[in-house]
C-alpha cells in the first residue's frame, strides 16, 4: 500500500486555480522529488498536503486514511511534517526553542535534540542564538531539524536550496541519507534539477498546475525533462 496517495487534487487561492487534478503516489521509505519552474504549483501542492490549504477529504490519503480536509495542526499529528519554503523560523525564539517547537505534537520516534545535533553539529554551537541570527544554510538546518523533531513518517521539504550557495546546499543534502535510513518517506520540491535527480528515487515534473512528467532519474532523458519543465 502506498504511503501517500494524491487523487485529483485541485487547489488555488480565491479565484486563482494553481493545481488542476494532480495524481501522485509515494511508497514507504521512498524519496520523491518534484521539479518545475516558478509558478508550476509545487509549493501549493506541498501546502495542500500539509493541511495549510483545505481540500476534499479523499484528495489526500495518508496510510489509507483520508486527510485532505484536516487542518495543518492535525496533519502533523498524523505524521507529516513540512519544512516550509522560506524556512519560517521563529525570530523571537532561540535555535533550541525553535527545535523544541518541532516536538509540540509529542509524536514518539527516533528524533530528539541530541540526534538533531549529531545531524547538524553547528546547531549545537549556536543553540542559544536567535534562529534568525544564523546564516541561510544554518537556518535551513534548523527548519529541517524542527520538522524532524515531530518524528514524521513523511517529510515534506519545500525548496530547501532556495537562495543558498551550492556548497551549502550540498552540506544540507548530506544529511538526507541519515533521514532516509530511519525509514522516513521524503518528498522534496526542488528547482535544482541535478540535485533533485541525485537525491530521489523518482521525480515528478509540474507544469502550470499539472503533472507533465513522471519517472526514475536514470530513465528520463534531458530532453524529456526540458520538454516537461518548459513545455517545449
Amino acid at each position, binding site marked *: 500500500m502506498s504511503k501517500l496517495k494524491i487523487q485529483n487534487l485541485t487547489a488555488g487561492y480565491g479565484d486563482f486555480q494553481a493545481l488542476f487534478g494532480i495524481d501522485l503516489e509515494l511508497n514507504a521509505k521512498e524519496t520523491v522529488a518534484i521539479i518545475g519552474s516558478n509558478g508550476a504549483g509545487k509549493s501549493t501542492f506541498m501546502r495542500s498536503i*500539509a*493541511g*495549510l490549504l483545505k481540500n476534499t477529504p479523499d484528495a489526500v490519503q495518508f496510510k489509507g486514511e483520508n486527510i485532505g480536509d484536516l*487542518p*495543518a*495542526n492535525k*496533519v*502533523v*499529528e498524523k505524521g507529516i*511534517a*513540512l519544512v*516550509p519554503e522560506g524556512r*519560517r*523560523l*521563529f*525570530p*523571537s*525564539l*532561540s535555535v*533550541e*526553542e525553535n527545535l*523544541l*517547537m*518541532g516536538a*509540540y*505534537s509529542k509524536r514518539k520516534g527516533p528524533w*530528539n*535534540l*541530541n540526534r538533531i545535533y549529531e545531524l547538524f553539529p553547528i546547531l549545537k554551537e549556536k*543553540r*542559544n542564538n536567535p534562529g534568525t541570527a544564523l546564516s541561510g544554510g544554518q537556518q535551513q538546518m534548523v527548519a529541517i531539524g*524542527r520538522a524532524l523533531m*515531530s518524528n514524521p513518517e513523511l517529510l515534506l521539504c519545500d525548496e530547501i536550496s532556495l537562495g543558498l550557495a551550492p556548497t551549502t546546499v550540498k552540506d544540507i543534502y548530506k544529511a538526507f541519507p541519515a533521514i532516509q535510513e530511519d525509514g522516513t518517506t521524503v518528498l522534496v520540491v526542488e528547482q535544482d534539477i541535478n540535485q533533485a535527480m541525485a537525491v530521489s528515487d523518482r521525480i515528478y515534473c509540474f507544469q502550470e498546475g499539472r503533472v507533465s512528467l513522471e519517472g526514475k532519474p536514470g530513465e528520463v532523458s534531458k530532453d524529456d525533462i526540458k520538454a516537461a519543465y518548459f513545455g517545449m
Partner: protein
Amino acid sequence: MNTQMKTEQFSVVRNTTTSRGAAVVTAMILIALISVPFWAGRADLRMIIEFAYYLSLAQMWNLLAGYAGLVSIGQQAFVGLGGYMLFVLAIYFNVPPIMAVFLSGLIVALFAIPTALTVFRLRGAYFAIGTWVVAEVYRLGFAQVTTLGGGSGQSLPASIVREIGSGRSEREMIIYFTALFIAVASIGLVYWLLRSKHGLSLTAIRDSEAASDSLGVDIFKTKLAVYVISAGITGVVGALIFLQKLRISPDAAFNLQDWTAAVIFIVVIGGIGTIEGPIIGTLIYFILRGVLADYGSVYMIVLGVVAVVMMLKAPQGVWGFLSKKYDLHLFPVHRRLKAKDELE
C-alpha cells in the same frame, strides 16, 4: 524554582543569577507591601491599590497583544462588564462583595467566548477596531438597563458596602489586600503560562502563524484561551475597581481612555512582550502622573510626547532596551541550553 528539562547531554535552564536575585528582591518588596496598611496613610493605600489594578490590567493586555499578537483596544469592555457583574451579583443575588469580585471574572470570561467568536473573524487593524466597537456596544447596552441605573449609573447600597468591612479603614485594608493578591496572581499567571509549553507556542504563533500551525499548534484554540483568560482577569480587576469606587456608570465603566489607552501606554513604554515591561511602565505612568498632576491638559500632551519619542527611539520599551543592553532577565521565560558540565 529551577526548571530543568533533562536530555541526555544537555539541560534546558531558564533561571539566571540576576533572576534569582530578582526573586529575593520581589519577595522583600512583597513583604513590605503586605505591611503597608499597618503604617501608611489612606492616600498611599489608595495609590497602591490603583497601581495594583493598573499593573494587572497591563499584564493582561501585554499577554494579549505582546504574546498572542491580539492587539485589542476594547479591553474596557471587560473592565466594565466586571464592574457591572459585581453590582448585579452583590445587589440582586446577595453574593458577598469580595466573592462577587472573583465570580464577576468568571462571568466575564464566559461573555468573552461569544465576543471572541465575533472579533476573531477580523485580523490586524480590523480586529483592533472590532474590539473597540464591541466595547461600545456593551456601553450602549448597559446604558439601556434601567434596573442598573441606565445612562446615569448607580451606587452600591450602604448595606452592601458594610458587608465588605464594618469601618472605612477595614474596608480599605480588605480591598488593598485583594488588589495586591490580584496583581501578584496576574504576574504569576503570565509567568507560569509563558514558562509552560503553551508559552513557547504563544511566542511561536506571534512570530509565524503558518509555521506554528504546521508544527501542530491549534492557533484558534490557543488564541481563544488567551483571550478568555485575559478577559476573565480583566473582569476581576474591573469588579475590584468599582468596588473601590462604590459607584458605576456606563461612561466610567467602559472608558476607553482610562482602561485601555492608559494601559497600552504603560505596556508600550515599559516594554511589550516582557513581564518586566508592564511593571516598569506602570511605575513610569504613576511617576509622570504624580509629577504632572497640577498641570492640567499639559499632562496628556507630555504623555503623548513620551509615547511618540519612545516609539521612535526605543520601540522595544524601557525594559526591552535595558534587557538587551545589559542582558537582564528578571522573570526569565526563555529556555537556555547548557551542557551538563556548564551547569552549576
